[in-house]
């Protein structure tokens, strides 16, 4: 098993950033929200603002780990005819425009499972993806998925939670490549106004387990302000994942795309700045 592979864009990015002493800004967008045409320009704005890694959501009908913002965005995208195939095709276009940008897909297990895990991962790799995040895939059920992904040099990002006990944390780290996704709170995705007391401790615990395997830890769920970012980075996070706060900004500016894109760029810039603090 390869623990590290410099050829993977995600690993390369974390190496580069850690040498500069800054945390990675991972920005989530939903494929097909508000429409497929905008997806590429939204990514371009986030990258211009300083996004280091892009996470493209492929909508699923029953997103159990997601709060209202993501549920609405995925519902909207599906209503507009978004499919996994169309999402991968869009990713192909984005890959052509940003050859070095690390891009991960986030979706629920049934989507790759329906096509067949290996087939889906093959298509994902051909589209230019660097890895996958499946929030309802626990390590126990993941053997064939991880093996297939390793063969294709795709990252498999697993999630850890504040209540994940230490021995289990080690198996989450072991199965993860690219980075370990620490869920900062007890809850679903969605912007939150404050940081929970237990989050710093959860980051320290995850960092300790991941450090032994030399894997970075990125923290997500509920992060929506530069102050949140500073808190997480201060507690040791190697990366910050922002999702619902981006979707909220898209939603607020549906009537004015130009404004939407400039808002997204300046939001990414403010968050990235906090990653360097």
């Amino acid at each position, binding site marked *: 098993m390869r623990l590290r592979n410099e050829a993977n864009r995600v690993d390369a990015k974390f190496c580069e950033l850690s040498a500069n002493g800054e945390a990675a800004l991972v920005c989530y967008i939903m494929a097909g929200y508000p429409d497929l045409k905008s997806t590429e320009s939204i990514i371009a704005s986030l990258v211009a603002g300083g996004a280091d890694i892009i996470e493209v959501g492929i909508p699923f009908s029953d997103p159990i780990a997601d709060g209202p913002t993501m549920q609405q965005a995925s519902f909207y995208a599906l209503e507009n005819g978004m499919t996994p195939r169309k999402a991968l095709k869009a990713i192909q276009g984005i890959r052509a425009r940003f050859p070095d940008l690390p891009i991960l897909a986030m979706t629920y297990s049934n989507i790759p499972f329906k096509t067949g895990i290996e087939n889906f991962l093959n298509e994902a790799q051909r589209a230019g993806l660097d890895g996958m995040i499946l929030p309802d895939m*626990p390590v126990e059920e993941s053997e064939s998925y991880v093996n297939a992904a390793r063969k294709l040099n795709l990252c498999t990002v697993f999630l850890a939670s504040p209540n994940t006990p230490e021995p289990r944390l080690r198996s989450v780290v072991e199965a993860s490549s690219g980075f370990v996704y620490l869920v900062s709170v007890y809850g679903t995705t969605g912007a939150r106004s404050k940081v929970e007391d237990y989050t710093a401790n959860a980051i320290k615990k995850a960092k300790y387990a991941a450090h032994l395997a030399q894997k970075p830890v990125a923290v997500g769920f509920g992060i929506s302000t530069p102050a949140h970012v500073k808190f997480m980075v201060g507690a040791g996070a190697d990366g910050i994942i922002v999702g619902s706060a981006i979707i909220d900004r898209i939603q607020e500016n549906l009537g004015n795309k130009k404004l939407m894109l400039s808002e997204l760029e300046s939001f990414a810039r403010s968050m990235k700045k906090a990653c360097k603090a």
Partner: protein
Amino acid sequence: MSSDAIDYPVNGKFGRYGGKYIPETLVPAIEELESAYARYRDDADFKNELEYYLKQYAGRPTPLYFAKNLTDYAGGARIFLKREDLLHGGAHKTNNTLGQGLLARRMGKKRIIAETGAGQHGVGTAMACAVLGLQAEIYMGSKDIQRQKLNVFRMQLLGAKVHSVDSGSRTLKDAINEAIRDWISNVRDTYYLLGSVVGPHPYPAMVRDFQSVIGREIKEQAAKLCGGLPDAVVACVGGGSNAMGTFYPFLNDLSVSLYGIEAGGQGIKSGKHSATLAAGSLGILHGMMTYLLQDDDGQVLETHSISAGLDYPGVGPEHAFLKDIKRAKYAACVDQDAVSAFLTLSKLEGIIPALEPSHAIAYSIKLAQSMRKDQNIVVTLSGRGDKDVEVVQNYLKLKNKHMRSGA
């Protein structure tokens, strides 16, 4: 739990079905539940306590009733009804809610959440929580709230809080999604009381165990009434808990044919149905690998049935396994036939069945006709039909209107 238990699930799986496809936050809670259930399932004190409530509070055992008029009407094998409609609460759901309620109390959990489709599991949960001193919050799709108003009020009378779910198809599937989201957010002090043999391990096995009292009683009662094992048992399947509870004690009695009847809605070809085992494909939903009604991309489809309790795009993983190994047969019954069985049983036996088991009754009438008169069929009458009277009334009105207009 019973001496005839066959040797599964293994690692939470029935063959390839089942498992625990859940967000990481829920893993410690599921593990806690698994070890609590392993500790108490064979604990004499727990079993006595459950038996006490099932008997003194809920009215077990329920009768096995020889439906002579229905038998004469069908003109074939003898039909017996397992009267779960007479259980406290009006449906088999109480077996499970008392079992899990007592377990939750022993685990020290005070806040209980549950999903409900037709409202029967919500009512069952509200009752168990009231009597056991627990606090109940029930998630219910807004579409189901519309068609099952009576049950919503019953839950409220029993002290439960009902949350309306407006996402997706606004039915049982979405109520489960929302209950899971609540559980993720409140995992440290909340018990999720799942109502069917679905979800991540250990729910399918645990709910089946709590419902197996149905099959165990049938076995004892049939020995007296029929002089031995019945030739066939029939039950309706949505998630599949009353069917699994009925089938399980008979799994190793190969002379007993097992029939699970799904909701055929407006017919399989119409695409408007909930017949997951008949028309579904392998997938992952609500923490389990099982058959699903889904499109080619893996998006879960909206289901249709006149009975809210069968309106679910997945099915318990043990049923998926029993279908594969051909130990049970699964068939679908359309809305029209279920309503006709609903009317027939009401008129012939003075029993108004719920629409869910009306599907099983419709199938049993046909099955009886294909069997000898000295053979015996047991149908699990999983609930009573008070909640469905308005739905049936509207259905008949609409049908008469169509007939008059020549449509």
